[in-house]
C-alpha cells in the first residue's frame, strides 16, 4: 500500500528507488508486445520464452567469450531469434488455435529442458554468470526502446500489413480468397514476434548478474499470455497495460505481515477478465480459437470492450 502513497506524493524519488521494478515493467511490456503481434494475426503462439532464451544466452555468451559490445551482442541475439523463428515457424504455422499453442509449448520445453540443460557452454543447470550486468543503469534503454516499439507496432497496425493481419485473424479462408498471402504474412508476424522476444530476453539478461535456465519455461509463457489477454490484444496498448498492471499487482497488494497476496492476485485476475472479457483495453473480438459454438465475431469496429 505504501507503494501507491509514495508514487503519488514523490514521483521523482519513487522513480529513483524503483528502477528495477520499472525496468521489469518495461521488459514485460516488450514481451507483451511480442505477444500482441502474434495474437493480432490470429496465432496463439506461446513461443516467446524460447526466443527470449536465445536472445539472452547469445548476448551473454558473446559478451563473456568475445568481449564484444553490448549493442552488437543484442543485435546478434535478435537476428538469431529471428532465424530460429523461421525454422520453427515453417512446420507449425499451418496448425490452428490450441494446436499451435501446444506445439509452441513443445518447442520451448524442448529448448529449455533438452538443449539448454545439456549443452555445456550454457552452464547447464547452473546458468550463466553475467559480470557486465548493469541493473540500475539499464532502465533508460528499456524505456526508450519500449516507446519506439509501441510506436512502430502502432504504425504497423494502421498499414496494409496490419489490416491483413486483422483480416487473417477474423477469417483465414476469407482473407485467402481476398488475395492476401496468408502464409507469408503469418510467418512475418511470427518472426517479428520472435525477434521482439529475443530483444526482451537480451535486455533482461543485461539487468541481471545471472541467466537462469528455469526462467524460460511454461510458467513464463503463461505469464506473458496473461499480460496480453488481460490487457486486451485488439490494440497495441492493451498488452502494455496488462504488463503494467500485472507486474505492479504484487507490490500494490503488499501489506506487512499479510501472506495471502497470491489469493488476492488470483481473485483480481478472475474479476477483471469476467467484467472486461475483451481485456482492460479491449476492442473488437478475438476469435483465435473458434470452437463451433462461440458467437461469430462482430466486425472489429465494434463498441469498446
Amino acid at each position, binding site marked *: 500500500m505504501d507503494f501507491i502513497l509514495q508514487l503519488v506524493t514523490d514521483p521523482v524519488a519513487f522513480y529513483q*528507488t524503483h528502477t528495477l521494478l520499472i525496468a521489469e515493467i518495461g521488459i514485460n511490456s516488450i514481451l507483451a508486445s511480442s505477444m500482441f503481434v502474434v495474437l493480432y494475426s490470429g496465432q496463439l503462439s506461446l513461443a516467446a520464452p524460447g526466443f527470449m532464451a536465445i536472445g539472452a544466452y547469445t548476448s551473454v555468451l558473446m559478451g563473456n567469450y568475445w568481449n564484444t559490445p553490448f549493442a552488437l551482442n543484442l543485435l546478434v541475439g535478435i537476428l538469431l531469434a529471428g532465424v530460429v523463428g523461421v525454422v520453427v515457424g515453417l512446420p507449425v504455422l499451418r496448425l490452428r488455435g490450441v494446436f499451435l499453442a501446444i506445439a509452441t509449448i513443445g518447442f520451448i520445453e524442448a529448448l529449455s529442458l533438452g538443449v539448454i*540443460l545439456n549443452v555445456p557452454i550454457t552452464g*547447464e543447470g547452473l546458468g550463466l554468470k553475467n559480470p557486465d550486468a548493469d541493473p*540500475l543503469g539499464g532502465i533508460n534503454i528499456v524505456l526508450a526502446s519500449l516507446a519506439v516499439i509501441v510506436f512502430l507496432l502502432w504504425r504497423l497496425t494502421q498499414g496494409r500489413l496490419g489490416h491483413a493481419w486483422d483480416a487473417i485473424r477474423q477469417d483465414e479462408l476469407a482473407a485467402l480468397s481476398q488475395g492476401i498471402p496468408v502464409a507469408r504474412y503469418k510467418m512475418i508476424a511470427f518472426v517479428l514476434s520472435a525477434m521482439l522476444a529475443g530483444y526482451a530476453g537480451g535486455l533482461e539478461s543485461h539487468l*541481471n548478474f*545471472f541467466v537462469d535456465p528455469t526462467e524460460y519455461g511454461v510458467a513464463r509463457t503463461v505469464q506473458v499470455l496473461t499480460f496480453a489477454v488481460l490487457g486486451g490484444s485488439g490494440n497495441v496498448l492493451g498488452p502494455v497495460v496488462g504488463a503494467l498492471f500485472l507486474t505492479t499487482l504484487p507490490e500494490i497488494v503488499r501489506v506487512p505481515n499479510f501472506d495471502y497476496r497470491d489469493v488476492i492476485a488470483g481473485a483480481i485476475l478472475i474479476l477483471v477478465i469476467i467484467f472486461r472479457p475483451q481485456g482492460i483495453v479491449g476492442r473488437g473480438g478475438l476469435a483465435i480459437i473458434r470452437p463451433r459454438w462461440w458467437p461469430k465475431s462482430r466486425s472489429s469496429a465494434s463498441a469498446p470492450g
Partner: protein
Amino acid sequence: MKRERVILVFLAALVLAACGTTSSSGGGGNAYAGKTIKLGAILSITGAGGVYGPQSRDGMKLAVDQINKSGGVNGAMIDLTVNDDASLKAQSAQLAQTMIQQDQDLALLGPTLSNSAVGVHPLAESLKTPILAVSTTGIHIVPDCNYPDETPCKYVFRDSLGEQTAIPDNIMAYAQDAHPKTGVLLVAQDDKFSSDGGTIVQKTVDQYGIQLLKVIKFSKTEADLSPYVTQAVQLKPDVIFITSLGAIPAKIMTEARNEGWTGQFLGGNGFNTATVSKQAGAAGKGARSASAWYIGNTFASNADFVNAYRAAYSKDPDQFAAQGYTGIKIIADAAKRANLTFTDLAGDRDKLRAALETVNIDTPLGPFQFTSTHDVKQTVWIIQMDGAGGFTLVHEIKPS
C-alpha cells in the same frame, strides 16, 4: 563542608552513571537512546522457498523481541521489516533496491534462496549496504558474490554454513565409519542448489577413495523419479548421494528402499528439516547429512533459545530458525560497537560493516565469528534421520 559537598556530588554522579547503564542484553550504555535501528529482511514466505522462509522469520522476530524487551541496542529499538519475495529472483532484487534506497534500512538479511542471492548480493554490494545471508549455502555466496570483478565482496556476510564445508565433512565422517567404495550421484540439474552440491560431491569423493559410478541428472519438477532411481539401484553402489531439497530426497529414498537397495544415503542441507525426515519415514532411517545446528546441542545460549522459541510458537525450532535468530544477534552486536551516528546513513553502513567483521559472540550455533572471507566457522553436526520424523546425532566435528 566542602568535602561533604564534593562527596555528595561524587555520589550523585555515581548514581547518575548507574542509572544510565540499563540492563540491556550484554550491558553497555545508552548511547543510542531514543533512536531506531531499521533492518530489513527479504525472505521467501510464499513459493517454493516458503519451506524455509517462515522459520527464518520466526527466529528473527524472536531475537528482535528479546533484544527490544531488555533495553534494545544501547537503548535503540530494532525495527525489523520482513518482506516476502515469493521465491522470485526479480521480486527479491526489487525489494533489495527499495529497502536500501527508499526505506533506508541500515542493513539487510536474506534472501532465502541461493538463486535470488545471486542477484541481490551484488546489488547490496554496489549500493554499499551490509547484507547477512541466513540460509543460502551455495558456492559463490561469499567471498565472491558474483559482483563484476569477483573480488571479495566487502558488504556480504553469511551465517549459514556452506555446502562447501558441510558436504565434505559429511562424506569424510561416513568414509571413516564405513569405508564405502562406490557411489552414485543423483542431482537435479535445473536447481542451482542441487547442482552446486553435486559439484562439491564430485570434487570430494576421490579424496576418500569412493568411485562415482554414475552421475544421474533429472529435472526438479518431475513428478516421478522412479526411472532414475532404478538406474542408480541397478548399479549396486555402496552410497547414493542426494543433493536436492524439498520433496525430492524423500521420494528417492522411498523408491530406492522399495527396490530393495540397502546402502547408505548421504545428503546435503536439503536433508536438514523435520518435514523431509517425516516424509521419508522409515525409508529415510540412517540417512546422513551435515547440519549447522542440532536441537540438543549444549552451547550456552541454545537451551534458552529453544525454550523461548517453543514458548512463543508452540513448536520446535529448526536450523533455519536458529540461523535467523543468530543473524539478528550478530547485527545487534555489531551495531552496539559501531558508534552509529544515525544521521549519516552511508557512514553508518560502513561502520556496521567494519564492526561485523569483528563479531565474537555466543549464539545457539555456538561461539560465532566470521572468517576472513565473511563466512562461517563453527561446529558441524553429523546427523541421521531416525525413521520417525526426527534426527539423532552421530558425530560432532569441531571447527579446525
